[in-house]
């Protein structure tokens, strides 16, 4: 069997993919110093030789050969053993140097055009992930599966396309719209940036002119005789002006946002009910104790409360140096002496005097649940 060596077979660059040429022929690769595998023209003879491929079989050949062979209509691929019929129209130059990558990208593009569901189309994330997995498997089959696998994958792809034609079309349109929108947004941003730049430039220009004018005025003043006053005045004026520009800008921006906000409100007021629900009555200042009252109800905190147990600490430098307040201690002791005096656990936990019955029920349910859990875990 006569076989033409693939274009990259010789030369240093070919060693990467052609290690096992004898068992399985490697993909044809394009390198700059190639020779056209069809007409054997080398670049030396034709400086602007260009290699084209056809996505039918990805066999590369020079543009001259393409013109020569396919100008008169469809023809067979000139590579030996390749029986594909190629057309002139299908030829293009490869984007990637490695044609395997080129092919994979083409396949992926084709698959993505058909399987173009978005995450929103699925009920759960898991469904979406399953879908992605399925698509990826299919792609893999197409890219590097065997003949049979490729055929089934093709069939699946075709079936899906036929079945979901409308959906695919819709998604494609949506995707295009999204693209279009983002492009428009980008363009608008770019415009705004340019606008800003131009304005800044103009402002700088204006300022420069102002400075020159001031300087002239200053010189005039000097010529007239009252130097100090004139210079200071001009300086001040200029500084003031510069500040003014910034202030003006700020004011403008504020007005702009206010207008925008007003527009927002106006737009959202259609869904006024929702708005209203979002803003309940003002809550007032935050109360870390959630409304607990710390004024004792049953006892009065007398001054000069004391206990023999704490008397000895009142002269202890270790306690008084640190600023320990014995009133704190007495207040706490008094609080503890009376806290919960009117809490009747037996009644409250049974019938809920202090609490509502629902609270008691949920509490006991919680207790039971926790009890169960503890026993079971």
């Amino acid at each position: 069997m006569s076989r033409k060596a693939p274009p990259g077979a010789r030369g240093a660059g070919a060693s990467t993919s052609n290690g096992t040429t004898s068992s399985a022929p490697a993909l044809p690769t394009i390198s700059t110093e190639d020779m056209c595998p069809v007409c054997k023209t080398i670049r030396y003879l034709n400086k602007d030789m260009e290699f084209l491929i056809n996505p039918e079989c990805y066999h590369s050949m020079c543009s001259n050969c393409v013109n020569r062979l396919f100008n008169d209509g469809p023809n067979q691929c000139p590579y030996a053993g390749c029986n594909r019929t190629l057309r002139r129209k299908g030829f293009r130059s490869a984007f990637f140097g490695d044609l395997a990558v080129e092919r994979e990208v083409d396949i992926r593009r084709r698959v993505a055009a058909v399987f173009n569901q978005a995450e929103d189309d699925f009920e759960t994330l898991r469904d979406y992930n399953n879908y992605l997995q399925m698509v990826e498997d299919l792609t893999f089959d197409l890219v590097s599966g065997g003949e049979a696998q490729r055929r089934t994958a093709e069939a699946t792809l075709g079936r899906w396309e036929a079945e979901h034609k409308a959906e695919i079309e819709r998604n494609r349109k949506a995707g295009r719209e999204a693209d279009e929108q983002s492009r428009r947004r980008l363009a608008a941003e770019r415009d705004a940036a340019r606008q800003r730049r131009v304005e800044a430039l103009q402002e700088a220009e204006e300022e420069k002119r102002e400075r020159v004018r001031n300087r002239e005025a200053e010189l005039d003043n000097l010529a007239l005789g009252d130097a100090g006053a004139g210079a200071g005045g001009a300086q001040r004026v200029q500084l003031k002006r510069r500040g003014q520009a910034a202030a003006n800008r700020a004011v403008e921006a504020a007005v702009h946002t206010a207008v925008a906000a007003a527009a927002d409100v106006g737009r959202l007021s259609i869904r006024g009910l929702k708005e209203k629900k979002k803003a309940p009555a003002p809550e007032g200042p935050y109360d870390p104790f959630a409304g607990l009252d710390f004024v004792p109800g049953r006892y009065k905190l007398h001054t000069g409360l004391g206990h023999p147990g704490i008397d000895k600490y009142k002269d202890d430098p270790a306690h008084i140096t640190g600023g320990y307040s014995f009133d704190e201690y007495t207040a706490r002791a008094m609080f503890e002496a009376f806290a919960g005096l009117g809490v009747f656990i037996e009644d409250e936990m049974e019938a809920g005097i202090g609490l509502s019955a629902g609270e008691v029920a949920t509490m006991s349910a919680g207790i039971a649940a926790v009890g169960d859990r503890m026993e079971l875990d």
Partner: protein
Amino acid sequence: MATEDARYRQSSQYQLWSFSPTRLAAMRDKTNAAARARIAERLSSLPALSNNTSAPTSSANTPNADGSSTPALPEFLTPPEEAQLVTFFTSELLRAGDHAEMSDDIKATAAAFFRRFYVTNSIMTYPPQEMLFVALFFGCKAEGTFVSIAEFGKTFDREHPEDILAGEFLLCQGLRFAIDVKHPFRALRGATMELATLPDIDRNRLAAAEHRAREVLRFSPLITDAYFHYTPSQIMLAALSLADRGLTERLMTQTFHHVAPPPDNSGADTPASSGPDGPAPATKRGPPRGSEDKAQIIGPHIRDQVLGTIEACRNLLARELPERREHWSDRAVLKAQVTPLRKKLSKCRDPDRWNLVELQRVRREQAAKRADSEEADPAPPGAAAANNTAAGDGTVFGDALAPREVKRRRVLDDPFGGPL
């Protein structure tokens, strides 16, 4: 509602660990029943081990080769027996605390921890002799006294302090992470201070009463269920009334003075001297300004209710007065009451949970295994639990779409057709 009561109702002691006697008994029954069921199940699954409980080590042992077929299940402890054992071990805990010269707060906190733990956990499930030290050690930390575990172990001649650490998280779980225990000790001080401002109270009598009440507080409420049923102030007043009933009533009438306070009956049934030796101080409360609210807080109605509660608490405490301390370490009592129960306990304890160190190790391993598969249900520790996690891991991304063979990357298969 008085503000003090509202504040007390915010505490975890009230919200999580206050029960009426019936509910507490119901919870204990439930705990007991659950423990019985589980231990019976475990014991029957380990037939050879169930009568080989002489050693405290658990299931790690090799099964006996003598081939004894599943023996009858042991006799389980009843809830009252369990309660008695818990009481006994509480007294042991207090004794251990005395031995280590811990403060009253620590001992009380540890005792409360211990009793709370054994409300939702059966004494047959986790070893009380171990949990007692865990509670003590954790009580130290809860009260802000941070002893080192080595030192703590040395105090009690434990050569393996890890045993204590192993139960710590378990204890916390059992406490439902409510670490703060409100004690009546400081409340007693407060009551004394309040009483000391009264003109006609003898200081010596007050000091004696306080001393006695403190002694009661150090033992009686800890070894009974008082902490579950009463608030610290009620316990304190009950203890005070055990020491000196007159003083308590004086304080009560002083406090709940709203409408027409009943005639002063201070010292009516106490023999202590009530000489009017203090000059009338200016701190005496002014006459109450009448209002519905005041009547609710310091009216006679609520006073009667409080007095009734204190009386009930007093009766509870009177069952375990400090003099009973010796009762629980008395040889005859031990032999008659506790030893049989402990023997029984050694026969019916949970084989998987008895060794805390082993249990902690197993649980950690399990936790590591199912760290990322949340749906793995809590399975019993042991060999069976390890198997079901591997299956769960695979389905994180959903079930397989279709059975597929392993993919092989066949780049060298020419996808473009035959060779040139």
